[in-house]
């Protein structure tokens, strides 16, 4: 990332792809209440994505609006982190992923709220309240799963082992950005460590640290996700409800 456009685009893509993945749970969650919860969280992420992508389009100044950025870019032009594009997996994978994402988004949006860019500050001030609720929700579930039955503990630990390598990308230093992601690491650790401890989960050792999402180099999963998300808009350009 370099500069406000790439930074804003990356944050918008994080929220957009997270929304799309969470939306896949609709009608499939383990219980009715959780179905509603995941759909609501998806809606919050989509709301943040719309604000961020609209602003990114203005910063770029090439006439692209939120729809053009969401529906008319290919995978190599997306700047989201790899974490959000990974498949949902089981419920433990989804909740651990949401914990890692929201534990990053809360300090991110909080820092944005105090940045000199008034538009980003307004988006940050709005979105951090919603992300705090996502963090609270996912932390409750991770504790419940980790400190639950042998089976739920096994799955929660497996989810953490699978996803942990991907969270490093979120904090790659970018001193030129409106908020340097490297400065958010302490806030993330302060939230996640106690949750993992209470959940009786073991934090994986740092080993493999996949990245590349911010440069448009993604896993194979993103293009499948985009194909489903973009097909209607591309089949019927300019269609409106």
């Amino acid at each position, binding site marked *: 990332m370099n500069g406000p456009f790439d930074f804003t685009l990356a944050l918008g893509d994080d929220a957009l792809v997270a929304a799309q993945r969470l939306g896949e749970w609709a009608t499939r969650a383990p219980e*009715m*209440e959780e179905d*509603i*919860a995941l*759909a*609501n*969280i998806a*809606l*919050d*992420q*989509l*709301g*943040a994505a*719309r*604000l961020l992508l609209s602003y990114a389009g203005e910063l770029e100044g090439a006439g692209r609006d939120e729809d053009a950025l969401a529906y008319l870019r290919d995978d190599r032009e997306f700047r989201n982190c790899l974490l959000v594009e990974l498949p949902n997996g089981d419920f433990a994978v989804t909740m651990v992923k949401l914990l890692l994402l929201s534990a990053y988004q*809360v300090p991110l949006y*909080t820092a944005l709220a105090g940045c000199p860019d*008034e538009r980003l*500050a*307004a*988006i940050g*001030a*709005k*979105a*951090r*309240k*919603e992300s*705090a*609720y996502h*963090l*609270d*929700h996912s*932390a409750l579930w991770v504790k419940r799963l980790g400190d639950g039955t042998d089976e739920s503990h096994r799955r929660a630990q497996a989810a953490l082992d699978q996803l942990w390598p991907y969270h490093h990308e979120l904090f790659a230093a970018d001193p030129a950005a409106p908020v340097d992601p490297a400065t958010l690491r302490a806030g993330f650790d302060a939230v996640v460590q106690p949750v993992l401890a209470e959940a009786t989960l073991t934090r994986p050792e740092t080993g493999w640290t996949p990245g590349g999402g911010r440069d448009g180099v993604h896993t194979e999963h993103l293009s499948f996700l985009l194909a489903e998300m973009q097909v209607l808009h591309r089949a019927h350009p300019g269609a409106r409800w």
Partner: protein
Amino acid sequence: MTDPRTAVAAVVDPEIRVITIDELGILRAVDEDPATGRVVVTITPTYTGCPAMDVIRTDIRRALTVAGHPDAEVRTVYTPAWSTDWISAAGRAKLAAAGIAPPGPRGDGTAVPVTLAVRCPRCGSPETEQVSRFGSTACKALWRCRSCSEPFDHLKAL
């Protein structure tokens, strides 16, 4: 011709139809240019992804047209961010009367929210429990009264 502020303030929230957008605190300003008669309405969303915003914008323009102000523009602002503390006392009373428990005071938005006792809007009992942290709209959670067994919506403090 009705005063534009009065006309806009009477628009009801499309998802919680017992409360006006003014009582809900999402109506931030109504400005009329005395020279041209053009009305600029400023609103703010409860949640960023609130799907009711398009309907609210349409309802505002319709209300202004009916009131004799066809030249109108609706602007959306995000700062300062909406808080449930902006719901008026009249709005809170209407929510409760409609079976929706109004929100308590909010936290600072960064810490984990503290759950205070939520009174049942039917019988007033504080013996209630949260059934689901999310409800029928982005701004609500689902609760149940242990005294009278009534399930009810609770507008989450934000």
